[in-house]
């Protein structure tokens, strides 16, 4: 049974320096508050895993929390580049970031293999591309029946899987709906898991489609709007203005570091950061 605790305590207990940490959420339900808390507690040397590193990983990388990144697409969706991610890779600022690069299909198979207790997964792809040349976790395997050669990728088994969901019930089961991404796989592939939720309810909303039973979750924290600037279906919309403004904030690292001080290090929690973000404050 998971502890229902504060996000501070959940991160303090379950996320350690040097851990492999996956924060998942595919455009929807991105666990941004958890990412901030990891920065706030000044975790270091993390191996960050995420199919689509976007603003929250730009922040974590810019803050120097990560030494490596496992991913398949790193950008600010609908806006452009991630400047902190790019400066880390292109110029080694704040320090060098090693990368392990896949495609979406490959990452999804890696999580599924990890959740399935298998050391690898198989897919059609990668052949003919330059990715296998630079990524050790891509190989090939022969079909023992047809002799055909297929791509093989090693399983992902993060130390900690972190997701955001709409609801937890009083027993600590997690319920979510809308676009579900690879959240189930990320939690089941991980040794420990943290879930932030919009609220705890007596009975799940009838729209709930994915349920993770309490006994696969390590800790739950209630963090309203914890996925901002992404959205939580049924709770709030995507903050498109914030995505555009992030381009401005993150472009220069001095400007970013100032943001980091004000919004993360000088705040107690995510609610304080939201209160300082003008177009959110009134919601």
């Amino acid at each position, binding site marked *: 049974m998971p502890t229902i605790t504060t996000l501070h305590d959940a991160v303090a207990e379950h996320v350690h320096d040097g851990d492999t940490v996956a924060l998942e959420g*595919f*455009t*929807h339900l991105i666990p941004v508050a958890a990412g901030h808390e990891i920065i706030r507690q000044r975790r270091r040397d993390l191996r960050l895993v995420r*199919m*689509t590193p976007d603003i929250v990983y730009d922040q974590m990388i810019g803050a120097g929390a990560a030494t490596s990144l496992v*991913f*398949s*697409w*790193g*950008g600010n*969706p*609908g806006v452009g*580049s*991630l400047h902190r*991610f*790019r400066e880390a*890779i*292109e110029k080694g600022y704040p320090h060098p970031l090693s990368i392990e*690069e*896949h*495609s*979406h*299909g*490959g990452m*999804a*198979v890696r*999580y*599924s293999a990890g959740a399935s207790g298998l050391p690898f997964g198989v*897919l*059609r*792809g*990668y*052949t*003919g*591309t*330059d*990715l296998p040349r*630079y990524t050790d976790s891509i190989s090939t395997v022969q079909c023992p029946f047809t002799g*055909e*050669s*297929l791509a093989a990728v090693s399983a992902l088994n993060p130390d900690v899987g972190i997701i955001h969901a709409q609801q937890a019930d009083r027993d600590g089961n997690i319920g979510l709906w*809308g*676009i*579900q*991404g*690879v959240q*189930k*796989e990320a939690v089941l592939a991980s040794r420990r898991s943290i879930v932030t939720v919009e609220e705890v309810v007596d009975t799940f909303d009838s729209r709930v*489609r994915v349920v993770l039973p309490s006994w696969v979750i390590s800790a739950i924290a209630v963090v309203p709007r914890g996925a901002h600037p992404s*959205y939580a*279906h049924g709770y709030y*919309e*995507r903050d*498109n203005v914030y995505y555009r403004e992030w381009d401005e904030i993150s472009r220069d690292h001095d400007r970013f570091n100032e943001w980091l001080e004000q919004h993360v290090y000088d705040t107690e929690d995510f609610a304080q950061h939201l209160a300082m973000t003008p177009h959110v404050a009134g919601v």
Partner: protein
Amino acid sequence: MVTQLDFDTDLTFTADEMMTIVASRELSDGDVVFVGIGIPSTAANLARRTHAPNVVLVYESGTIGTKPTRPPLSIGDGELAETADAVVSVSEIFSYWLQGGRIDIGFLGAAQLDRWGNLNTTVVGDYDHPTVRLPGAGGAPEIAFNARKTMIVLRQNPRAFVDRLDFISSVGHYEGHGSRRALGAAGSGPSIIITDIGVLRPDVTTHELVLVSLHPGRTIDEALNGTGWALRVSDELTTTEPPTASELAALRELSSS
């Protein structure tokens, strides 16, 4: 970079509108289309509102048969889930649906494209010391590999249309001459490249891209100058049919919604 083109009617259209409309015309009713954000999404939605009402939109976020009322800003917009026939996990969309051979047409874009329709979305420069780090492959390698055919939408200039890719992120016709098939790719590869200047299609035997059509007002020289290799021009080069009044009206209604 919106180019205003006056044509012989009073219809004025931008390069983006021309590209979107050409892409839309390529879709047939009932096609199952794997779409990303931007022109592909707009084109597929335009087709659904005009000549192909039963085109099926599939987004990599796991929404199948979505019917958005406005062009989505991200591939994971809430409206995509709300209007979908089915919402499945990202794992399932890549395994059972894309790799399972259920997608007729995949849309792709890129930073760089070569004469075989291979794509780079990874880096400009050296991989370990890149000049420009691009977002990366995303779902494109699997779309390129597994969709029955692909359509590529890309503005034509020498930075994008290069003689040699800095990095092969997604395979098109690979090294041409049927070499794609030997890689084990399920689909048949790029069937059309739609640029702001014209349309390219692969030669049926060599699979090298050939300029087959110029958009109204554009010239062969513009196409040649926009291409970093010696671009082949079809003997039967045509002019792209300009947007019709009804196509433009539908597109603009869609874009303003």
